[in-house]
């Protein structure tokens, strides 16, 4: 029990530290940290599939992208719209997209599932890239959703808006984290863990495995939608790359980097990966080289991720 209590304290401490960051950091670092939180949401949502259910999806960024494009469609040109409208809409679109794609791709397993999610993700990418649905291959700018409700708008200067977006991200990430933690403790979570361990046995016990998988897929798509919405809200621009499979692969990397057997692993991984990317940009022109070598090192040397390092020391 003390281990669990210690973990809770560590988590609360971590979130408290993150909450204090805007008090000391400049605009640049608040924006960077905001991006890290969005990446953490994406990684956390994907980990529901990869870590909890044991299915590797390479099309997850499609839902992230679909949600971001929803914001672009909704905001009228020249006008503004509250995030209280755009956020639920983005979640809805991401859920519907993941329901359709999940219903088809979950008929397959393992290697097939990976390729099929990859192909569907790429289909969404081409939808935004080539058809009139998107704004062209280079992306489009729009007015960022505002902080307003029922005709009241909170007017914010640039600094305050960045800080407000940061806290909204932190709030959503914390809600997602503790929500998932609670969910995985319920019967639903136990069944999901059972499917990861032995799908046939769960089926033999009478569970409709397909339905549980689809529920996970849609939930993780919806959560990716939250991340996609916050990306669009922060940047005020969308481009097809958001839905590309490179984005999905990066989210997988964050999970692997942080450790996929825990819930805080993906968050640590996302923060570490964003930080590494930033440092790589500062030091060298060749970001891909640095990223490639880090992934290679992580795959070869860190099969349990950052969270795994700490865990091992605790065991010994």
């Amino acid at each position, binding site marked *: 029990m003390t281990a669990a209590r210690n973990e809770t304290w560590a988590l609360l401490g971590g979130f408290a530290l993150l909450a204090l960051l805007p008090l000391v950091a400049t605009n640049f670092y608040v924006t960077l940290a905001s991006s890290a939180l969005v990446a953490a949401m994406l990684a956390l949502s994907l980990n529901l599939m990869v870590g909890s259910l044991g299915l590797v999806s390479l099309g997850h960024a499609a839902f992230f992208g679909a949600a971001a494009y929803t914001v672009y469609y909704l905001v009228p040109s020249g006008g503004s719209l509250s995030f209280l409208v755009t956020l639920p809409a983005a979640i809805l679109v991401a859920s519907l997209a993941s329901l359709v794609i999940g219903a088809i791709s979950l008929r397959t397993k393992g290697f097939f599932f990976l390729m099929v999610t990859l192909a569907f993700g*790429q289909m969404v990418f081409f939808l935004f890239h080539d058809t009139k649905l998107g704004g062209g291959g280079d992306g489009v700018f729009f007015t960022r959703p505002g902080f307003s409700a029922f005709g009241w708008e909170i007017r914010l200067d640039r600094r305050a808006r960045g800080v407000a977006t940061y806290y909204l991200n932190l709030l959503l990430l914390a809600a997602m984290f503790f929500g998932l933690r609670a969910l995985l403790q319920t019967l639903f979570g136990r069944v999901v863990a059972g499917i990861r361990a032995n799908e046939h046995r769960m089926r033999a016990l009478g569970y409709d495995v397909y339905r549980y998988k689809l529920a996970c897929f849609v939930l993780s798509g919806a959560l990716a939608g939250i991340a996609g919405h916050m990306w669009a809200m922060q940047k005020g621009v969308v481009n097809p790359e958001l839905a590309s499979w490179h984005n999905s692969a990066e989210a997988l990397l964050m999970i692997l980097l942080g450790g996929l057997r825990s819930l805080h692993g993906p968050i640590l991984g996302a923060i570490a990966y964003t930080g590494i990317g930033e440092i790589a940009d500062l030091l060298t022109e060749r970001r891909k080289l640095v990223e490639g070598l880090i992934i290679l090192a992580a795959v070869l040397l860190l099969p349990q991720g950052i969270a795994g390092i700490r865990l091992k020391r605790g065991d010994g």
Partner: protein
Amino acid sequence: MDLSGLLAQILNGLQYGLLLFLISSGLTLIFGIMGIINLAHGSLFMVGAYAAFLSVKSFGSLWLALPLGLIGGAVLGALLERFLFRYFYRREHLDQVLLTFALILLFEELRSIVAGNGFHAVEVPALLDFSVAVTRDFSYSAYRLFALAICLVLAAVLFHAIHRTRFGAMIRAGADKPEMVQMLGIDVSRVHVAVFAVGTALAVVAGMLAAPLYSVYPGMGDGFLIISFVVVVIGGIGSVGGAFWAALLIGLVDTLGKVFLPSVAGIAVYVLMAAVLLLRPSGLFARTQ
């Protein structure tokens, strides 16, 4: 569109399909036998295309590049197997995905260092820079016919090697029952090296043949990789014959789709894949077990 125009598009589709077959046959063999998901397979295609570009630029000839590409590709594949992939046969899919994703990034960076980040057209070899009169009022690019022929020859050699030779029997047996093959005293690791060498060589040569047709550009391996995945899914995992028919199907659907329904052509092949999965989840041409 008149008849000769349609004929040209059908030939284009077949030629594109055969190119896809060269890429996807390696992909399907490597997964079918070693269980490796090789996302970097598209990068090997790109390596071939850029090697052709550099060869034409430096020596003014594609002819030297093709045989060298076949040999160089085989060596590259064997080295990758021996020093990297061999350690990932028993690892989880996630690890394989990330390993090969890292390779994509490294190959892209290598491409950027060696050849820069621009688009480059690659000249069709002078010897083949003319059109062949197929009918009285229809002629077709000689280079495209040449690419088509080379692909067909390679496909025939591959089929012969897999179905008619002793080594092919080892490959097929290794795919079905690796432990049994091992117990019979056959060195399975040699089979693995060979499969990687052949798969890589085919992808590299496909890239070389493609360079004059599609020009070379950053990230060009990505598009071909994903379409090749669609081919493997439709053809059925591990089935080279399935990959052949699926590649021709996809080549025709994509090419004709771009002509007749340009607005939805980009997603037509994915819709086709979804339909196949709904009807036959293990692929159109999969063997029934």
